[in-house]
């Protein structure tokens, strides 16, 4: 994931071109392309939406409608460290709401927000399929299972001290 947007520099982003060219110019590829763009930029920048619109010959409003429908796609960059608390049923029953409350308090942001310094973002996710470890939360790709509010506090502190 990148920290800075790779495309607002004006020129065409060769990586974006590469993503587009992997797919046929068929509207049904929209979600596949968006998944890759999201993965690459960490969000779906407006410039990329425009490029997709031209490539697939679709109006931008429709693409925007698709982006805002699926929760995986975001319009703003996430924080460097994305804390995601699973609110799937198994985790919920095991008290994951408390984890979320703890994270909110520790980061002073609400779910769906990013800290002012861009370091952390907080997210409440649906089941990540690690129900055996409930309750779980993740920081980027790292999974923390059988978590407690104390662990959440500790982990956030650790990341706060990182670059």
């Amino acid at each position, binding site marked *: 994931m990148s920290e800075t947007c790779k495309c607002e520099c004006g020129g065409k982003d060769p990586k974006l071109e590469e993503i587009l060219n992997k797919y046929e110019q068929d509207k049904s590829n929209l979600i596949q392309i968006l998944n890759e763009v999201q993965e690459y930029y960490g969000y779906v920048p407006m410039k990329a939406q425009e490029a997709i619109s031209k490539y697939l010959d679709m109006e931008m409003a429709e693409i925007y409608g698709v982006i805002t429908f699926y929760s*995986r796609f975001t319009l703003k960059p996430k924080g460097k460290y994305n804390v995601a608390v699973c609110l799937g049923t*198994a985790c919920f029953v095991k008290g994951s709401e408390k984890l979320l409350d703890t994270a909110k308090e520790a980061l002073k942001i609400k779910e769906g927000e990013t800290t002012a310094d861009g370091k952390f973002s907080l997210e409440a996710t649906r*089941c990540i399929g690690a129900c055996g470890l409930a309750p779980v939360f993740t920081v980027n790709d790292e999974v923390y299972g059988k978590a407690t509010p104390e662990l959440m506090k500790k982990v956030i502190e650790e990341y706060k001290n990182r670059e």
Partner: protein
Amino acid sequence: MKTLVEIKKIREEKRKELDLRVNLKASTKEKHILVCRGTGCTSSKSPQIIENFRKILKEKNIENVRVIQTGCFGLCAKGPIVIIRPEDTFYAMVKPEDCEEIINTHIIEGKKVERLLCKDVDEKLVDRLDELNFYKKQKRIALKNCGVIDPENIDEYIAFDGYKALEKVLTSMSQDDVIKEVTDSGLRGRGGAGFPTGKKWMFTKMAEGDQKYVVCNADEGDPGAFMDRSILEGDPHCVIEAMMIAGYAVGASKGYIYVRAEYPIAVKRFQKAIDQAKDYGILGKNIWGTNFSFDLEIRLGAGAFVCGEETALLESIEGRRGQPRLKPPFPANAGLWQKPTLINNVETYANITKIILNGAKWYSSIGTETSKGTKVFALGGNVVNIGLVEVPMGTTLREIVFDIGGGIPNGHNFKAAQTGGPSGGCIPAQHLDTPIDYESLGAIGSMMGSGGLIVMDDTKCMVNLAKFYLGFTVDESCGKCTPCRIGTRRMLEILEKITKGSGTMEDLQNLEDLANNIKKASVCGLGQTAPNPVLSTIKYFKDEYIAHIKDKKCPAGECKALAKVTIDPEKCKGCGICKRQCPVNAITGETKSPHKIDPSVCIKCGACVEKCPFKAISK
């Protein structure tokens, strides 16, 4: 490219080599260390465990021991899990640093590492997997290969009868033969509604169309269900093979599998499996010299529960917002790009190869009158053995929760089980002996659903639980039709009002009326079932609702706004621990004299309740 003869040869040779995996009496000097690489165990560092094992074996020049990554064993609560075959020793909660000891003690000295053996519910140490209560009542059909084979190795799949069903179908069965076999087996859709699979296949076969499609629904949306993920991670080829058989039966040459992007391991393994199958010439044109061609593609979801609804899924594959279509027409007649399309879910497909190989008669001998075969459940919540279980239809809830699941931990009592996720309902203790099948679950206000089974103990508030599910539905409603878009939101708002203590009996009546109308008026299954968690909790736990409304109390003590935290001055010794725990400084008191909580400051977080060494604080 491999010919059929070559594939048969691989099967024979590889089967011999892998005999010790399943033949626990095999006399061989070889050992296979199986390490679970499902999502759960992977999260708790199982890749590191594999790496460590391999490194140590190499350092010690041990050659007759192989380390194999497998899919999920099911007992996720005890993960990461390591099993050593043929002796079938089961090590639980293994850490990467335990590898050295396992090699030294188990492999070299031939003794068990006792501290890593699994403790059963009765505290008995169990050293073999098949002795665990967790496995005793299970019957693994859909999960047959999960935890046995390396999912990333097509040869291992072939060794255990892989692609043999396809061979049978392509070489000796007509389309109608296949459909008849599936119909006679009594298999019903495992995704939720339980529509007879054979019928679906027949409709798609009969539909007219120059192009037909086969789709696998792997958009496992029920928060708390992970059987489809486990199958894709543990045995991807069985889904490919079944989709091909379906393609042959209905006359489709192209398949799509729609998988959640949140399942990266499953996606990666499935893609690998597709690549291997293509490489072997199993997927492609004129397979094994027959007229049958089949191509398969993965389509990723992007985080929308509603895409588990079959028509919304089709919309999503076509690149649009996942908004369901009105039925009829059904996908069998007008599906992907308006062409006849067969859609089944992962677990349904996972039964197909076994039905073809063992026959409809065998399959239909398992289960109940109307629900045949087995069902996989993701057992979670307040239960000891969290994990994946596969049981014959008709097993009772009590058997699953207590015999397999090991009952309720921490000395609490069973309060309810929830099946069917956000579409299902809560089942109270009086229905624990209900046999699990489609009809029985429906009759008590729940549904089979995809197989999430969440157990709740007596500390759980049923109103709060209903609120949780409604919150989920509100978030996941696609927004297409009015009842679901606005109605579920209004239901949630009423539930919020009730859990805050400001609800009225009129609200409760409105809630029920609204729920019934949303069920009837919504476009798709999501809206039509969204009120179920509310209706079933009202049905079985109405007194709890009334307690919130009339007495302004949450009997389970979960609803924060209604909770009142008090210190019993008789029990309080004035140790001050609670004071230090309190995040908002609501507790005051001199050391060694009873403390007090200021209710206007208290946020009812419960931190003091948990920490009080004298159990003097109650909520």
